């Protein structure tokens, strides 16, 4: 039997919006990695000297770095939402509707974030 096998290209994810959002979710880890490395550099500068740490802080205040952080925030927030959205599928069967698990998770992370922000400002 001569069957025809259609090729799968590297752009397969462009054929359906569902796949595009999946790729956004997966790609957000790259942005998150760069953000984590930036923080690590900050910790390293802090251990070196105050001058170097202040220099690192000054670099963070540049417009393109702030724009990057806004982008990272949006992508990580989206990733966090998808993480809670699929959470019910990864849990053993519990007598609670899926939506309740998602809402509880998103609410909990929201409260934690606000508390963290409040603690950082205090």
């Amino acid at each position, binding site marked *: 039997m001569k069957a025809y096998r259609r090729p799968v290209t590297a752009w397969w994810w462009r054929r359906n919006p569902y796949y595009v959002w999946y790729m956004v979710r997966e790609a957000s880890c790259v942005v998150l990695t760069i953000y984590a490395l930036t923080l690590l550099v900050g910790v390293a500068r802090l251990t070196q000297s105050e001058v170097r740490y202040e220099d690192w802080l000054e670099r963070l205040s540049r417009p393109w770095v702030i724009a990057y952080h806004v982008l990272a925030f949006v992508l990580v927030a989206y990733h966090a939402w998808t993480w809670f959205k699929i959470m019910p*599928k990864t849990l053993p069967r519990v007598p609670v509707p899926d939506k309740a698990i998602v809402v509880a998770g998103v609410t909990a992370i929201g409260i934690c974030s606000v508390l963290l922000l409040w603690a950082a400002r205090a």
Partner: protein
Amino acid sequence: MRTIAIECLRYHPEADAAPHWQHYDVPFTDDMTVLQGLQYIKDELDGSLTFRWSCRMAICGSCGTMVNGVPRLGCETFLRDYYPGPLRVEPLTHFPIVRDLAIDQSDFLAKLESAKPWLMPKVDPGAEPHRQTPEQLADYYQYSQCINCLLCYAACPQYGLNEKFTGPAVLALLHRYNADSRDGGKQERMQLVNAEDGVWGCTLVGYCSEVCPKGVDPARAVNQNKIESTKDYFLRFLAPRSGR
């Protein structure tokens, strides 16, 4: 009566080097499905068009096709929702095309058999009924609704990229038996779950569960079994089993 433009992907293995699109103008009424549109083409316009169908009511799982790029059962997709078209109908993606809209299902069938999708009783109930509580039934009921239509395979990019991946429906059906309180075949099936191309081939895209016409949630079955696979891996150090 309105007319809708339907474009079908055609492939004749003896004549064509590659598939090509063919255009048809199909008159339709509001109650006509995509499957009925294809039947109109075959009966009135072009008798050479090949496609699978049987029950016409989302039970047999034969008429799965890509409708405008989305895996759908032709019998429960209405032409009116795509008017004026063009409505593009093509074979389920990720499967080899045998002819026109008919795909080669052999890979799926071999995988299905390897999952041992039958009840292997834990204890022989003898002449007594094998009782189960509603709670125990709820553990696997939704997975038993799978009709093997393969829409989830067409939706799964991991299967498209690596056809060795066991895939959503087989893993959902495997879970249907593993989660059954009467079944005792879990250890035999865990080899398939634990394999590199078993549950760990899934990256939780989740589209398989979105397209299922029977409300089965294969993504849940697969990810429940990631927990089972992890438990199976670590527990064998605590309680080694023979022959492993």
